[in-house]
């Protein structure tokens, strides 16, 4: 009888403990990884970072109100920050919980302290489950001697003072580079904007000045034969460039209408077009002064163009 009772109690005990083990393994919430850092040599003012990776079976989700609020936990411990990020994985949810503490305990000797456990609640509809982030025991070390060096020292406060740490020099090169790059980019954008708005002064030479230069070059080179044709062509190119399209003799009126600054030179321009027509299409050789005439016309046109640009 006694033996039967013993065996039944043993069986119940074994069964119970077995089911207990099974319960833990089957609990809906589990800590998969944890990292609490060094548990010794912590000094006053140090920040302590704890990180937990918690897995919760679906459809459980964390109850936000069960998370601790940042603030003073005890007179020496402050929870500065808590962040929870979640990710769905297979049929469970992973929570990455970051806790950032700061300790203000100033021990006189090495002292064991404890950050308390944090109970977290999870819910799935009516069902609830709980998981406790474990408490953390660590030791704190003092930052100063109990008594100042040299027995019998009378000035207690001064004795603990250490010289200030010399300021550290940071290199500003990278920032300087970034600043100058930004400055150049903004100036270019500003110029582009002004250019698009047509607010930039007309830079560059008048096409007529350029043509005059070319004609002078032709004159200097003293090439025989078609040099006068090249000079006439240079003037034509300049006129076409100014009009942004081809100007034929019959379009002289429109050209003058479009660029009234040349109105004063209309007879000269008409003469030039006639001369060009004779030279290119009628195969008539113009007089010897043709290159000089072209040069003069270019100068006059350039001058008229400049006056209008200043206006």
């Amino acid at each position, binding site marked *: 009888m006694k033996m039967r009772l013993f065996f039944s109690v043993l069986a119940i005990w074994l069964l119970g403990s077995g089911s207990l083990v099974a319960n833990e393994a089957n609990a809906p919430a589990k800590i998969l990884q944890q990292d609490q850092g060094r548990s010794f040599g912590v000094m006053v003012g140090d920040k302590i970072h704890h990180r937990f990776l918690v897995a919760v079976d679906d459809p459980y989700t964390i109850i936000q109100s069960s998370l601790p609020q940042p603030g003073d936990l005890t007179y020496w411990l402050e929870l500065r920050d808590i962040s929870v990020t979640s990710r769905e994985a297979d049929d469970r949810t992973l929570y990455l919980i970051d806790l950032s503490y700061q300790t203000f305990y100033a021990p006189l000797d090495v002292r064991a302290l404890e950050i308390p456990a944090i109970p977290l609640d999870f819910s799935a509809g009516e069902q609830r489950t709980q998981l406790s982030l474990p408490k953390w025991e660590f030791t704190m070390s003092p930052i100063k001697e109990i008594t100042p060096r040299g027995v019998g020292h009378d000035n207690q406060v001064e004795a603990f003072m250490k010289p200030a740490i010399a300021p550290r020099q940071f290199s500003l090169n990278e920032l300087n580079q970034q600043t100058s790059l930004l400055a150049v980019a903004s100036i270019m954008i500003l110029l582009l904007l002004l250019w698009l708005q047509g607010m930039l002064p007309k830079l560059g030479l008048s096409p007529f000045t350029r043509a005059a230069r070319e004609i002078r070059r032709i004159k200097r080179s003293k090439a025989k034969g078609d040099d006068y*044709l090249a000079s*006439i*062509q240079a003037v*034509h*190119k300049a006129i*076409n460039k100014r009009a942004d*399209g*081809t100007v*034929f*003799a*019959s379009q002289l009126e429109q050209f003058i209408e479009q660029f009234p600054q040349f109105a004063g030179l209309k007879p000269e321009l008409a003469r030039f077009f006639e001369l*060009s*027509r004779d030279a*290119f*299409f*009628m*195969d008539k050789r113009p007089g010897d002064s043709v290159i000089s005439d072209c040069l003069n016309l270019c100068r006059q046109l350039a001058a008229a163009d400049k006056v209008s640009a200043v206006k």
Partner: protein
Amino acid sequence: MNQPANSQIPAMSDWHDLIAKMEQSINQTILGQETIVRQMVIATLSRGHILLEGDVGVGKTTLLKTVAETLGGNFERIEGTIDLMPHDLVYYTYIAENGKPGVSAGPVLKHGDALSIFFFNEINRARPQVHSLLLRIMAERSVHAFNETHYFPHLQVFADRNRIEKDETFELPAAARDRFMMELHVEQPKAEAQLKDLMFNTRFHDADKLVDSADKAVVPYDQLNDVAALIQEQVKASSTLQDYGFHLCRALREPAEYGIKISDVEVDKMIKGGMGPRGISYLARGARVNAWLNQREAIIPEDFHVILKQIAKHRIFLNPVYDYNRDEIIDTLIEAALDNVASP
């Protein structure tokens, strides 16, 4: 150059007067179409055929009849209808006095080689079979009938078509359009005085009487071929101008090469077909005639400008994607080519 056989041919300087008289006579009869008349004169002196297109009642037929009257020579006209067949142009069939069927020469053959103007009214109402016969008459100035080939050395074909109606019409094929030297677009005159005149002046009420009032046979039609050849002979084209003409035609075919840009159009994929050798030759011939009309010894770029649109427009074929807006795109293209190709 063969000298004309007719010793009574007026001197070339007199031809200027004749042409001026002809233009004046037409312009007195047809109001407000000076540009079109000038272009018809250019086509006539280039021995090119003309297709007139325009709205209803703007005077296309009257204009063609007047030009035909002033040119002199024998004039035939035929109306394009859907049941017109090629043999209707060549043969005339009837029941003879003896009650037997008879066949004699139709409108094209009736006048033999004295036919100077063949006027095809409403050409797009005729069937393609008729177009095809007309093509031969236009290109070769000959036709085969009664077992022999008949030649019409002085023939010029005028045709008109109404661009509003498209029902029961047969669009001219590209080959047919290419044989017309010019396609002229007739619009009604814009000037208020002219419109009032056309509205109230009784002179314009009866078109037949009006045409009848124009001077007849001002220009000897049988000398036009020789004069046209002489003009082509006499008017020079300098090498600079030849370059310009070449680039102008090339710009119409390869606009992307000349930096031509048209909004909403991919310029390099736009053109499917452009002016062929017939077209560019007509352009040069027309330019020479325009130079001659302006008493110049050589062609200048402006001579091309006067006729470029009329000669080039119906010869440019666009990618079908752009065909919906054909008129506007081609006008823009031609203007851009004139603007982008420089000379000298």
